């Protein structure tokens, strides 16, 4: 009970302190709407996905802050890259991220997305997520508890309210940089092919 109360308290305080004086009232309203209805893609990439169900269900109840799940990338505002991210997953993340509609935000959980974490010398995971897709907010820890995830969301909400969270613009402006890094680890065919070979024909799973 106490954590929830403290988080609400902090959110109210952050509302007061956010500096929005230089924005027009339309911008202020837009950001306020965006901040209060964050739809999170129901997608887990690593071990960190296990912390998301308690965050979104009754124990920590992220929905009271306007954060809730979305079924498909086209309906989602936020993608959480939770924990280690292998090359194979990175392909799907890039595809998913590019399917999402603007404005979109990326929340990276765990030390693996920050600097490789315990997989720093693994042959099959990426080390810094921000080289491949732009990241708005990192939540460090191995694994971060739901409280930390909520704090990360609150920090993200604050940035949205101030109009600072603009990673999708960074992705569009520096697309060559990101594409170069993606091709470095994934080869020429970055996005996975849309075919059903693995399902329809012998030779699949």
């Amino acid at each position, binding site marked *: 009970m106490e954590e929830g109360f403290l988080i609400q308290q902090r959110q109210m305080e952050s509302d007061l302190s956010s500096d929005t004086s230089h924005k027009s009232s339309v911008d202020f309203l837009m950001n306020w709407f965006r901040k209060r209805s964050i739809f999170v893609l129901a997608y887990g990439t690593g071990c960190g996905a296990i912390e998301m169900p308690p965050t979104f269900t009754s124990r920590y109840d992220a929905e009271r802050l306007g954060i809730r799940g979305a079924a498909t990338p086209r309906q989602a505002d936020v993608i959480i890259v939770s924990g280690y991210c292998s090359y*194979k997953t990175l392909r799907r993340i890039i595809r998913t991220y590019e399917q999402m509609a603007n404005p979109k935000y990326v929340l990276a959980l765990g030390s693996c997305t*920050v*600097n490789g974490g315990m997989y*720093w010398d693994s042959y*099959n995971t990426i*080390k810094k997520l921000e080289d491949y897709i732009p990241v708005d907010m990192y939540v460090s820890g191995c694994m971060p508890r739901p409280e930390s995830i909520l704090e990360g969301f609150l920090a993200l909400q604050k940035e949205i309210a101030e109009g600072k969270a603009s990673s999708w613009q960074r992705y569009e402006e520096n697309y060559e940089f990101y594409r170069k890094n993606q091709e*470095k680890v994934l*080869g020429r065919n970055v996005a996975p092919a849309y075919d059903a070979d693995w399902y329809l024909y012998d*030779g699949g799973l």
Partner: protein
Amino acid sequence: MNTLIRNRFGTDEIEVKRDDLSKVTVVKYRVFELIHLLVEQYGYTTLNAITCADWIEEGHFAITYMLTTRARRHTFMVQTMIGREEAKIDSLTMLFPQAEIMERDLHEMYGIDFPGNGNLVELSLENWVHTPPLRREFDTLAFVNELHDFREGRDDNLDVKAEMKRLRALKKAAKEAAAKKEALKTEEKEEASQPSAAQKESGHGK
């Protein structure tokens, strides 16, 4: 059964590891004969796993087939050595269809070829073009350093080992100081209590 296997396959000894686990090493071209014998005559009907160990110094892979009886009472490890160069051994899918995915795994991780297995496509890796990653000549660190650069630490980051040492020393010093204080206190108490006891005794005496 053990003597039969020994006589027929010319192996030195059947190693009994536990009550429910034995291991036998045979040459490559007689593995399937032995497995067939175990399956047909002795009821080792379950293939648990196909494992591989890379003995780079000796220049071979040790492939182990683990077979278990129907009642799960006994497990037999049938091991064979194959050369690391052009590693190749026949597929077991004719006897055990479930060997397909295990062989697929070994093919991906060690680059072993299994003639007879028609489905040796990649299992968990994607578009892998380097040396198979579990072969010991594959240098993981060099691979990682080539593809990635690491984030530098914070400006105020500290050496973890030195810091732990320092904290431990601090803790120890604090503990010692506390112990000293306690000892002083008890001494004082004893000093304080002794005369009173003497007085009491003297009082008693009166």
